[in-house]
């Protein structure tokens, strides 16, 4: 696609940008409501060592982008190796300011609780995170199915997911021949709060996160022929694999299918690109189920209920009060989750970019933007794996911002702010759930 020209009509692009702008206004209103509540109740907490490490390493890659291609590649790979070591050496604490950071420790507290959640030994797999469940079951077995093995399985799973995350960035970097743009993208992605989850976070939602899809789809847009098809297929496979790990990847799958429509050429060619992405994604998302049933004799069950935020009246969901969207508390909570998931980066991309470059980012982000409005996370704010992974559009925004040095610097400043926001939220127990006891 040539710069400045869009595959959709000019009016359609304008309408889409306008509609996304309207949705974004609701998000901005949420941020303002969250700011009011923070001003009244929160105590600022400094980002911890893990945040400092990812931001510091990100700055090193960003500065090295001024050097030649060979040096950029060396610096980026060295930093990725360093961060992989940091994932193991500097684990996240299990609690912060007397609050557990995740539900994992209570799941791993006893074999009974662990096996109720991960029932592979009984021949059962939960659909919402089927591949993640199977891997956890294998790791637990590999560590001897003892009282300590669930914790070791959680630790190992987080580091393995982190390694896959980094390998996908290397693939994207190599495919883009370590251009300045892709190196800036890698730098920004490494700085995002989502990277903290690979420092030994005890949940599985991070399995849905993939930062490799957006650069591959961008490559497919800008090159023709077999490169385009290979990059689209690879992007679909990555997205499907991560969605099999955890179902929250579905927003990325939907976004990727829409963004693939921005390929160069005729309407038929764009449709085929989208179908290529979708079919390869769905193959690696659901293909595993055939193997579970026929080869391993496993049973797949659906055991999850998604919480939806009410619009006007409070609702009791899973013994907890869900504040409505159109109330200060509800709007503020929505705004906080929107900010933590990276929507401010998307807002920055929209404010600083226009035309054809922005269109794929908008299409990739729309499913996540809409889902955030109605999603009510039951265990918030201590289910960071979902809060930080729910908006894959942050990666599309980072790709847009990585097009220039100044925009990527501005993106990094916002990311530093998100780290402060994250630790302040956890430290101040902001928007902690109100439980309803029996008889109340």
């Amino acid at each position, binding site marked *: 696609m040539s710069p400045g020209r869009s595959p959709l009509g000019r009016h359609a692009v304008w309408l889409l940008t306008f509609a996304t702008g309207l949705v974004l206004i609701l998000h901005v209103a949420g941020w303002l409501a969250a700011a009011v509540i923070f001003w009244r109740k929160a105590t*600022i907490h400094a980002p911890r060592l893990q945040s400092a490490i990812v931001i510091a390493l990100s700055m*090193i890659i960003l*500065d090295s*982008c001024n050097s030649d291609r060979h040096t950029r590649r060396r*610096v980026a790979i060295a930093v990725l190796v360093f961060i992989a070591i940091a994932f193991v050496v500097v684990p996240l604490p299990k609690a912060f300011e007397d609050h557990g950071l995740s539900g994992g420790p209570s799941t791993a507290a006893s074999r009974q609780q662990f096996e109720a959640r991960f029932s592979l030994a009984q021949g059962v797999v939960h659909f919402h995170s089927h591949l993640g469940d199977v891997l956890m079951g294998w790791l637990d077995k590999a560590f001897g199915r003892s009282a300590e093995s669930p914790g070791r399985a959680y630790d190992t799973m987080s580091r393995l997911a982190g390694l896959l995350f980094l390998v996908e960035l290397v693939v994207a970097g190599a495919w883009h021949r370590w251009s300045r743009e892709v190196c800036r993208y890698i730098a920004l992605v490494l700085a995002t709060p989502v990277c903290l989850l690979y420092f030994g976070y005890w949940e599985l939602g991070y399995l849905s996160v993939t930062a490799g899809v957006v650069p591959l789809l961008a490559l497919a847009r800008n090159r023709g022929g077999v490169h385009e098809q290979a990059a689209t297929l690879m992007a679909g496979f990555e997205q499907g694999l991560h969605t099999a790990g955890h179902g929250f990847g579905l927003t990325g799958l939907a976004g990727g299918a829409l963004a693939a429509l921005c390929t160069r050429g005729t309407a038929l060619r764009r449709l085929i690109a989208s179908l290529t992405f979708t079919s390869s994604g769905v193959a690696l998302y659901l293909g595993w189920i055939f193997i579970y049933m026929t080869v391993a004799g496993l049973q797949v069950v659906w055991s999850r209920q998604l919480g939806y935020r009410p619009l006007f009246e409070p609702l009791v969901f899973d013994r907890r009060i869900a504040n409505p969207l159109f109330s200060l508390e509800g709007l503020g909570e929505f705004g906080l989750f929107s900010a933590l998931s990276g929507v401010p980066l998307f807002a920055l991309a929209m404010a600083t970019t226009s035309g054809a470059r922005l269109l794929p980012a908008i299409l990739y982000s729309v499913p996540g933007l809409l889902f955030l409005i109605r999603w009510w996370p039951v265990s918030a704010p201590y289910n960071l794996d979902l809060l930080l992974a729910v908006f894959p559009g942050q990666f599309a925004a980072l790709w847009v911002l990585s097009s220039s040095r100044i925009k990527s610097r501005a993106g990094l400043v916002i990311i530093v702010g998100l780290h402060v926001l994250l630790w302040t939220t956890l430290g101040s127990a902001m928007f902690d759930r109100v439980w309803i006891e029996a008889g109340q």
Partner: protein
Amino acid sequence: MLLGALVSGGPVLVLATWFAAGQWRYAGPEPRAWLMFIGVVALASIIPVPGRVSTWRARRSRLLWWGWAAVAGLVVMT
């Protein structure tokens, strides 16, 4: 001239006084975590990296920036 000297020497002066007054021992975990965060990031900003301007003047300017950020954070947290 005096203002320039204050701006460039200010963070060192404030932080040195803060440490000399024994505040590190009495400060809660937050000011300590903030100084640790700024320390790691400031260190990463001055180490020589290919493509980065690593003159003495550039490093001093970056350190100054992070120094003021450290002071501002301490003021907010304490």
